[in-house]
């Protein structure tokens, strides 16, 4: 019973995201997207669902887990189709062992077509991760590391008013955590990929 409840919880987030996507698509109009004022302050807050995938040079297997992801970004716009800012991300696993990845990145967001809502986002910054790795024959062990993170994202923004929009976004955080102590062994060059999809609310 408990297991089925956990499964329902894990599936409900992607379903909710899909429903939000459909609703947003139905609610929007092309005219709204063309009225977006981009210069000036902006911020967004996103909730989504992500999957972590861990690799390292000496690991016996690739480890994966899923869980909710949260993002907050603030910044300014130097031109009509470019945003600059900082972004904080938090992803954590739904089940045991508890895993968590936190990143803080400086970002650039680019709208290739100023009158459309498509955008790409890229950022670089620092990461702190508590992850579970299998580096020897004794099973998975929890370990922590600090390193460097790259964020790459693409999405579509739907403007409801001149100051408020909803964005649908797919992103990957590539987090290099370095060498991590796992049990009695050392996992070399650990890289964590947190891939996520989400919906964000955007204020300008």
């Amino acid at each position: 019973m408990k297991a089925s409840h956990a499964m329902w919880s894990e599936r409900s987030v992607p379903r909710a995201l899909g429903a939000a996507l459909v609703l947003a698509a139905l609610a929007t109009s092309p005219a709204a997207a063309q009225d977006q004022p981009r210069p000036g302050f902006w911020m967004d807050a996103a909730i989504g669902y992500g999957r972590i995938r861990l690799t390292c040079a000496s690991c016996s297997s690739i480890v994966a887990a899923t869980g909710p992801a949260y993002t907050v970004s603030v910044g300014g716009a130097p031109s009509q189709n470019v945003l600059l800012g900082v972004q904080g991300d938090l992803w954590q696993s739904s089940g045991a062992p508890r895993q968590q990845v936190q990143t803080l990145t400086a970002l650039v967001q680019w709208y290739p077509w100023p009158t459309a809502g498509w955008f790409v986002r890229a950022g670089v910054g620092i990461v702190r991760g508590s992850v579970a790795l299998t580096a020897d024959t004794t099973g998975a062990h929890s370990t922590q590391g600090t390193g460097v993170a790259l964020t790459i994202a693409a999405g579509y923004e739907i403007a409801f008013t001149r100051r408020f929009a909803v964005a649908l976004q797919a992103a990957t955080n590539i987090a290099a955590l370095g060498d991590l102590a796992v049990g009695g062994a050392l996992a070399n060059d650990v890289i964590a990929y947190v891939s996520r999809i989400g919906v964000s609310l955007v204020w300008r």
Partner: protein
Amino acid sequence: MRARHLVLLALAATAALAARPAVGTAQDTTKVTTPDTAGAPKRDTTAVPVPGARDTTRADSARGGVGLRKHPILALLQMTSVNIFVNRMDAWVLNVSDPPPVGHYANVTLQSWGVNIRHGWVWDTDAFQVNMFMHPFQGAAYFRSGRVNGLNFWESTPLPFLGSLEWEFFGEKTLPSLNDLYNTGFGGIALGEMTWRMAPLIRDNRARGLGRFVRELLAFPIDPTGAVRRVLNGEAWRSLPNPRGSYPGAFDWVFQGGMQNGVDSGATLHHRTTAEALVEMSYGDPFVTPYSQPFDVFQVRLRAGTGSGGNVKEFRVTGRLWAHELTDTAATFRSILTVMQKLEFESSPAFKYGGQSLNIGFVSGIALGGGWDLQTSLYGEGIMLGAVDAPRSGAAGTDRTYDFGPGLGFSVNASLRTGGFQVLTARWHGAYLHSVSGASADTYTQFPSIEAAVPLTGSFGIGGYAGFYHRRSSYVGQPGESASSPEYRVFLVLHTHRGALPGEPAR
């Protein structure tokens, strides 16, 4: 055979894209009606060089950055064309290969694409020069794909990353390398914008004969895609107006030639004497060129020499991303809050250090009277990805003798000058790197140096330099270690200066 035909088609498409007139080139400025700064339509038929121009927004506008039509799809196609061209050159012309099992790495297949996507990123084991010096040049070609198609600086910044992603996953059979993504991406932005701004200063669309040929030839290494485009569409030999406002208001060159004595990093630590040459170029002047857009002021420093460890010993590009004047522009003492991007590469027999960083700090200047002035700068550095060598660094049995990692740093500079001639310059650079690939290490580096020169004429002089590199590494589970390396140079120096000097009222 069919695949080869498809690639030939792609190459043809590359040529076709390259043959398009670049948005905002001199050719365009005679045809395109653009709004002027007041918003009124203005037909630009008077595009001529403006020596001393301070408004680099106009320069960017004239070359496609502002107010002209943007072509993001064409930018992406041209970026892809660069990858196809490099891949096919490697496969068909150069026939390059890696040691087994990789072999001919450019002969990519659907299977190799699948392997790369499934496996994901790794840290590669290439030599320091390859990773820290050569990759940014490939990134520059991606970046200029955006600039030449009308995108401004910030709009072009995703392109070196996208181009690198495309190359790493689909352009070669080796697993995608995360350090290449960093160095191609960030280095590509710095080198791409630098070369984008330099090329029009070298070319002269009104020159004729041998002079025209030499200028086009000299511009080729810094803007190869632009050079191909100019040959294909005839801009390379047609008489056309030059882009407006290319000159940034101040332009300095420093040339040094001499001998360097430095300690080797080998077990014997013996001194070696080598011949060295240094070129330093300053595009714009923070006290003369008011901030209008990224890289309206930048500096490039290249030092080459004989001896082991490669001929390029030092390469540094620093470009101003943003600035805010904190003082009155007519004051004797001026200070400017500045955000700067830096690409750094240092490779000597004794040590290797490189990285991509964002810097924030103050550039200050004080006019001392009698033609003398003092310029200082103080920056804090966020090192996005650095590389440093140490005895336990890298990967055993490979060309990797260094670690990768993010970090923090600082730099302090002070320069006493007379008439633009640097008489006494002191520098101090410190960095902390936390390794994420290689040894489990935290590395601290310090590099103070001092340089003095005596002007024999207004622009020519003789000088000396002394620097001291110190590194300390601490390791997880192993004792730490440190190393020091002094180096000395004597040189002849030539300064050229054009434009207003700091301390003079801004025009």
